[in-house]
């Protein structure tokens, strides 16, 4: 590629006839005008129409809450178990977390975007001046669903099981490594002592569901793991506003109002989770009124329903949660070690085209590692433009030119060839990966697509034996990027692309012990600017959570913590 001006651009005119002569033109343009920014598509979406924009109408929050009724929620997967300590599973944590089980503290699910920490099983707590000792005073008079009283013994038994090396609570145990000791001076006090101060300590504790000591204390680690010996794996017993009723595998999970709940009791009588893997059937069930809430719809389904008569009986909710998709460039590979190359690659990727034309304009571009609404993100940081000409120029500058004239750029004898690894089942990923290949091909970069099973994918990630890959990170309202971006996380952590920047390391270490939120946000915004400049990832987009709620549901508000059934009530159906 000697002439970088010959970069192919998408031209909006299509070739129809098989054999044609060039059209008469007054002046032959050397290059068609670059489509730097995608022309805004003729969007059917009208922000005034709540059905299309996915905003719940204000009337949805109005009215007098009334007690009673069953709510049926459509879920697309059956959880492996309902014990989030033996199996790390999102669906299980949605169903049980702060709903069946409770923790010492909670993150207020309706406090968007701050999501402050609020008391739950602990009425109040004290933090020592050195930020290492946390003393929790437990709520009195709380009962387990089976009638036993809740005390500090339950907290200790739960911590014992998390720390027991023979249980499968591996994913939780990692967060207790910084824990020096835990103890219960009396029945209603628990003391945690940490080795180091850490700003996310309370968030971590909010993640720990407290399980009943009278069920788990007598189990060995092996018995605890096994569904045959640990009743909690299939039938949780908690202290929360809802109690577990039944679970039919791959069919439904039922939870019911806990009438002895210590706090504000839910309005709903029962919540039924209907498991239906097929989205089409899910929609049919919705049309028939057998489901009141369709959870996690795909973009295609959403768009498919734009003109559906369902809008008469349903509301839709589009909510951008804390997640982002990205392309990770393995910095150990010579072609990706150069910052200019990575910036060029980002500019060569037609992200506007992918979002608008392939993904129906649904995802939201992002440059931020954190929850997009959080103050840790710098709103002014815009994605690098889609500009293939500038991208090709940057590649030339970085020394990647087609010196041997074989159509593929090279530098020091290394051709610009790489393999783009995708996990099997990433349907949309496969869709745009093929487009990436075409675009790169036109500027003299050869990319091969490789689909890999998840178990092989993760192995190659941790071994750093890949060229480029795509993944998505998701998280909560606050996050600590150390696990992903600190150089110490290259080995054993999630820094799969081997990103190493002393400045970033220092910022992240400082932020961990900064308890002043605004000071920490400033550090994270600085960190974001460095990432933007370095482009170790090509940040793609935040994907919306798409849900459809029957109009009879009242009091629903989208949240990072999923739906709050505690606050919902049902309007009587006018038949």
């Amino acid at each position, binding site marked *: 590629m000697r002439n970088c001006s010959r970069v192919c651009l998408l031209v909006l005119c299509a070739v129809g006839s098989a054999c044609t002569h060039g059209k008469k033109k007054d002046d032959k343009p050397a290059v068609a005008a670059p489509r730097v920014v995608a022309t805004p598509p003729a969007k059917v979406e009208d922000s005034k129409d709540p059905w299309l924009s996915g905003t719940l109408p204000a009337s949805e929050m109005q009215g007098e809450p009334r007690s009673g009724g069953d709510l049926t929620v459509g879920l697309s997967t059956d*959880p*492996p*178990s309902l014990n989030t300590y*033996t*199996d*790390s599973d*999102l669906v299980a944590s949605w169903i049980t977390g702060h709903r069946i089980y409770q923790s010492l503290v909670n993150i207020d699910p309706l406090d968007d975007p701050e999501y402050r920490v609020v008391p739950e099983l602990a009425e109040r707590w004290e933090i020592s001046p050195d930020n290492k000792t946390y003393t929790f005073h437990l709520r009195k008079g709380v009962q387990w669903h089976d009638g036993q009283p809740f005390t500090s013994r339950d907290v200790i038994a739960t911590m014992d099981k998390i720390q027991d*090396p*023979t249980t*499968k609570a*591996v*994913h939780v*145990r*990692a*967060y207790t*490594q910084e824990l020096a000791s835990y103890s219960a001076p009396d029945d209603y006090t628990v003391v945690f002592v940490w080795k180091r101060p850490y700003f996310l300590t309370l968030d971590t504790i909010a993640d720990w569901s407290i399980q009943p000591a009278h069920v788990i204390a007598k189990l060995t680690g092996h018995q605890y*793991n*096994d*569904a*045959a010996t640990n009743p909690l*794996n299939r039938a949780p017993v908690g202290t929360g506003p809802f109690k577990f009723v039944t679970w039919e*595998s*791959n*069919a439904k999970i039922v939870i019911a109002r806990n009438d002895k709940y210590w706090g504000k009791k839910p309005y709903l009588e029962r919540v039924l989770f*209907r498991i*239906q*893997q*097929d989205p*089409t*059937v899910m929609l*049919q*069930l919705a*049309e*028939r009124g*057998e489901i009141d809430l369709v959870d996690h719809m795909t973009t295609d389904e959403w768009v498919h329903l734009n003109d559906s008569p369902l809008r008469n009986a349903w509301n839709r909710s589009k909510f951008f949660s804390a*997640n982002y998709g990205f392309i990770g460039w393995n910095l150990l590979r010579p072609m990706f070690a150069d910052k200019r190359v990575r910036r060029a690659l980002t500019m060569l990727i037609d992200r506007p085209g992918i979002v608008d034309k392939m993904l129906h304009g649904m995802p939201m571009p992002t440059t931020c590692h954190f929850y997009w609404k959080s103050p840790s993100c710098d709103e002014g940081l815009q994605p690098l433009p889609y500009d293939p000409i500038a991208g090709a120029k940057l590649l030339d500058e970085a020394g990647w030119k087609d010196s041997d004239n074989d159509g593929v750029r090279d530098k020091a004898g290394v051709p610009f060839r790489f393999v783009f690894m995708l*996990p*099997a089942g990433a349907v949309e990923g496969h869709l745009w990966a093929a487009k990436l290949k075409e675009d790169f091909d036109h500027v003299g970069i050869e990319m091969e697509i490789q689909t890999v*099973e*998840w*178990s*092989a*994918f*993760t*192995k*190659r*990630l*941790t071994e750093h034996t890949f060229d480029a890959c795509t*993944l*998505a*990170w*998701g*998280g909560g309202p606050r996050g600590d990027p150390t*696990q*992903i971006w600190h150089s110490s996380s290259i080995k*054993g*952590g*999630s820094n799969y692309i081997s990103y190493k920047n002393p400045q970033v390391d220092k910022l992240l270490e400082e932020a961990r012990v900064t308890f002043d939120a605004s000071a920490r946000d400033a550090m994270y915004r600085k960190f974001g600017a460095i990432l933007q400049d370095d482009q170790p990832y090509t940040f793609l987009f935040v994907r919306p959570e798409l849900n459809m709620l029957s109009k009879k549901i009242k009091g629903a508000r989208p949240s990072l913590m999923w739906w709050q059934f505690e606050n919902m009530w049902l309007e009587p159906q006018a038949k």
Partner: protein
Amino acid sequence: MLKYVVRRVLWMIPTLFGITLVCFLLLRMANADPVSAKLQNPMRAQQISQEAIAQLRALYDLDKPWYVQYGRLVQRLCTLDLGTRWQDGRPIVDVIAEALPITLLLSLLSITLAYLISIPLGVYSAVKQYSLGDRVLTVVLFVLYSLPAFWVGTMFIVFLASGNFLKCPWTADHACFPLQGWHAFDGFAAMSRWQKLGDVAWHMVLPVVTLTYQAFAVLSRYMRAGMLETLRQDFIRTARAKGLSERRVIFGHALRNSLIPIITLIGLELPELVSGAVIVESIFGIRGMGLVALEAIRMPDYPLVITIVAFTAVLVMLGMLLSDLLYAVVDPRIKAGEESR
């Protein structure tokens, strides 16, 4: 004869070892790590210590040399202590007990149907070779055989079950057939016995048709070929010369001989009874053995894969034995001892 059967059954033991060993080595060879796959949630960056990974590896025997891991697997298989599925910690016995009946229902229906239709069809088209009926049948069978099942299933979904094309206005969603599953998702437990039967039958129509038509096309072709072959034999000519009626020639003499090729196939169909049909199951969302096995292979879940493989292997071998015995019964010229002489 009995001695022969006993010897064959005894031979199954080393073969079973061979099969499980091959599959185990394939799993072990695979460049995949079930532990990291299990720990890495696709959406969450988890803090995972090396120590924690080591603990989980130990839990799954993955830290031990391959022969120790294999030995333990075999030991558990022999004592029928199958353990739990890695994916969700459910007992493997339960997982199989849930999936197997569905698969059996689907495949028994399909195989019975295939044999019931194909034998008379095959005989007819051989006896009336080159007649109009034979020609039409040949063409139809060709078409059926050449139709890929995943295409037919997909077309069924698009045109019959989606409610977009073929419409049955009396159903709630205008779809004439259910899209997914082997019974209604709601209210199935509350149905009466006959309603249940009807409901399952309605759900089974498209999957069974998708699963059957190819097998039945193959069987018919084998049956026709076998019959033609037999009809050219000398003993048929003799029988005809003796003045036997055509009916007796065909049903008394020829049919028995011409069953040989398709009887060998019975044995080979047997394992499919339990291994399930991944394609049909995945198109129609029927959670039978095929999908369970597919998920286990993708994980990869060593105990579950080995259990399913061993289970299928026993049936394969029994099937082969059965087909050899049947061979001996229908064709006395082949002595049962022949095979292992």
